[in-house]
């Protein structure tokens, strides 16, 4: 990132290859100001990915299977079914991960105790309470026969459930951007303007990837279009977000988060490229789909770990707040 803009007080400007100490800030023995998020990376970063994948997949499945009497040749059962099953599986795993992450899993139902618009997690719980049964039901109706006289209701019921899942899907894929941004974690809150768009793009890329991975090439055109659009948007929005974030953007470039996000960008870009190149090749499409899915997953893990890194280093809390106060530290840091 650029070193433009004044740093606090006695800060030095840093070049990319700088070996001098970074902008000075004061702290309590270098200990973090914030408490480290207690969320388990596999559960919560995993959910950010799976929830996005599920939500966007349901939306795509609904869009593809709905529409006034699609002309012959435009019906794509080869795409709709895997998207529905993918969404159901992803959201099922998500629910397991979310409950597993709780300190008191047996009390998961307390999420439904109140509805609090001030809590993105409460809002998300209610969104999931609509979405998850609809998404899982849509897929289940493909394989579970309805008893006796209910038999003929199967298709309409599935269509209705698919529509509910398709409408709730975009909410599932985007509220998580608010969920992590509404915290004091510098790398998460610092991206609150872009995070929902970042996650929506990443979810589109993942759903497109799922379609490319599972559907035959003659059916996967919608997934290809969505995957490529999502990938391009994800790469662009990610860059915009980091450019606007200020100091905490460093945590997206360094350490574990940096490695994850560089791999994510490479996989996403490669996936999009292969998706464009492999319109007629099943093998290339499968590779494209795998690349997009892996890229989306690593993006979420990268964002998660950037947040943790920004919470663990007091610099990212103290320095921007000093700047927002428009004041210098009253003393230079103690020589150690």
């Amino acid at each position, binding site marked *: 990132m650029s070193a433009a803009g004044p740093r606090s007080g006695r800060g030095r400007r840093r070049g990319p290859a700088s070996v001098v100490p970074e902008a000075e800030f004061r702290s309590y023995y270098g200990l973090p100001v914030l408490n480290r998020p207690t969320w388990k990376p596999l559960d919560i970063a995993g959910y950010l990915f799976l929830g996005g994948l599920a939500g966007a997949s349901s939306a795509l499945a609904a869009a593809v299977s709905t529409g006034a009497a699609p002309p012959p040749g435009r019906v794509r059962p080869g795409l709709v079914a895997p998207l529905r099953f993918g969404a159901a599986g992803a959201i099922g795993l998500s629910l397991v991960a979310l409950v597993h992450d709780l300190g008191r*899993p047996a009390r998961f139902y307390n999420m439904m105790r109140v509805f609090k618009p001030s809590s993105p997690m409460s809002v998300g719980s209610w969104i999931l309470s609509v979405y998850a049964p609809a998404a899982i039901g849509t897929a289940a109706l493909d394989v579970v026969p309805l008893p006796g006289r209910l038999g003929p209701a199967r298709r309409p019921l599935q269509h209705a459930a698919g529509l509910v899942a398709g409408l709730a899907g975009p909410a599932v894929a985007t509220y998580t951007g608010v969920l992590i941004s509404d915290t004091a974690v510098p790398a998460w809150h610092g991206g609150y303007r872009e995070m929902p768009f970042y996650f*929506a793009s990443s979810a589109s890329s993942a759903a497109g990837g799922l379609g490319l991975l599972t559907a035959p090439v003659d059916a996967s055109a919608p997934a290809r279009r969505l995957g490529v659009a999502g990938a391009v948007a994800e790469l662009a929005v990610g860059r915009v977000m980091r450019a606007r974030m200020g100091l905490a953007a460093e945590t997206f470039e360094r350490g574990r988060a940096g490695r994850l996000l560089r791999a994510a960008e490479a996989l996403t870009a490669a996936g999009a490229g292969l998706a464009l190149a492999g319109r007629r090749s099943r093998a290339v499409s499968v590779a494209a789909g795998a690349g997009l899915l892996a890229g989306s997953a690593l993006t979420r893990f990268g964002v998660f770990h950037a947040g943790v890194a920004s919470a663990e280093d007091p610099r990212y809390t103290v320095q921007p707040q000093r700047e927002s106060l428009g004041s210098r530290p009253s003393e230079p840091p103690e020589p150690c």
Partner: protein
Amino acid sequence: MPVGTDPAAGAGWESHPARVGFFTDTSICIGCKACEVACKEWNQVPDDGLKFSGMSFDNSWGLGADTWRHVAFIEQRRPVAATGGAAGPASPPGAAGELRWLMSSDVCKHCTHAACLDVCPTGALFRTEFATVVVQSDVCNGCGYCVPACPYGVIDQRKEDGRVWKCTLCYDRLKDGMEPACAKACPTQSIQFGPLDQLRERAAGRLEDLQERGVTGARLYGDDPHDGVGGAGAFFLLLDDPEVYGLPPDPVVTTRDLPSMWKRAGLAALALAGAVIAAAR
């Protein structure tokens, strides 16, 4: 009264006692840790291990699930008198190697606009009639959302228990008209408990007094109802920058930006729906 100045009323308490809080005057803290001990004893807060920090007399590190009062020790190589730093009285030559101690007992701020309370999805965190913020341990399901939400790093999850814990401002003692255990135990009245209005007046007087005496580094922290958390229920008189004590210089309740965040999430959801419909054609 607007919600900002009467959080208890804002939380739905129709009749309620005056808002109470702590004024921690660190200029008279002697670092005895009686507050830490009294808090642990009264609230039966479990042991969380003895970890030698090697940095100072502080081996309790910071606030967390099992440390609800935390005494910070800061050793500084500067003349004791020159508490104002560069702006303070001129230090005599040769005095630069001397040491001054800063000690401060930190605690939950019981914010006017409390992020932990805002984001809690179960309603386990609630605003009491005293306008303090308390976790109901029989409701908390350990989702952990309050932990990264707190701009001060106060609340945390107790690993073996799964739930989150923090200072209750001795809710049980308040109910019986008693002062919190830490304030009761403080031998120097560094920790003062009382109605917040009175504490703010007293703190302003103390600050003026110290500044007249040349302690120009003295400043109040968390007393301003116009700050990023709407003012803290537990505020401090500090002798140096807040970050030196491990406190954030300009904490903000991030739910302040929530309307804008929801608007953006709505736009992003619409954009996603639009992209999906366009892709499906």
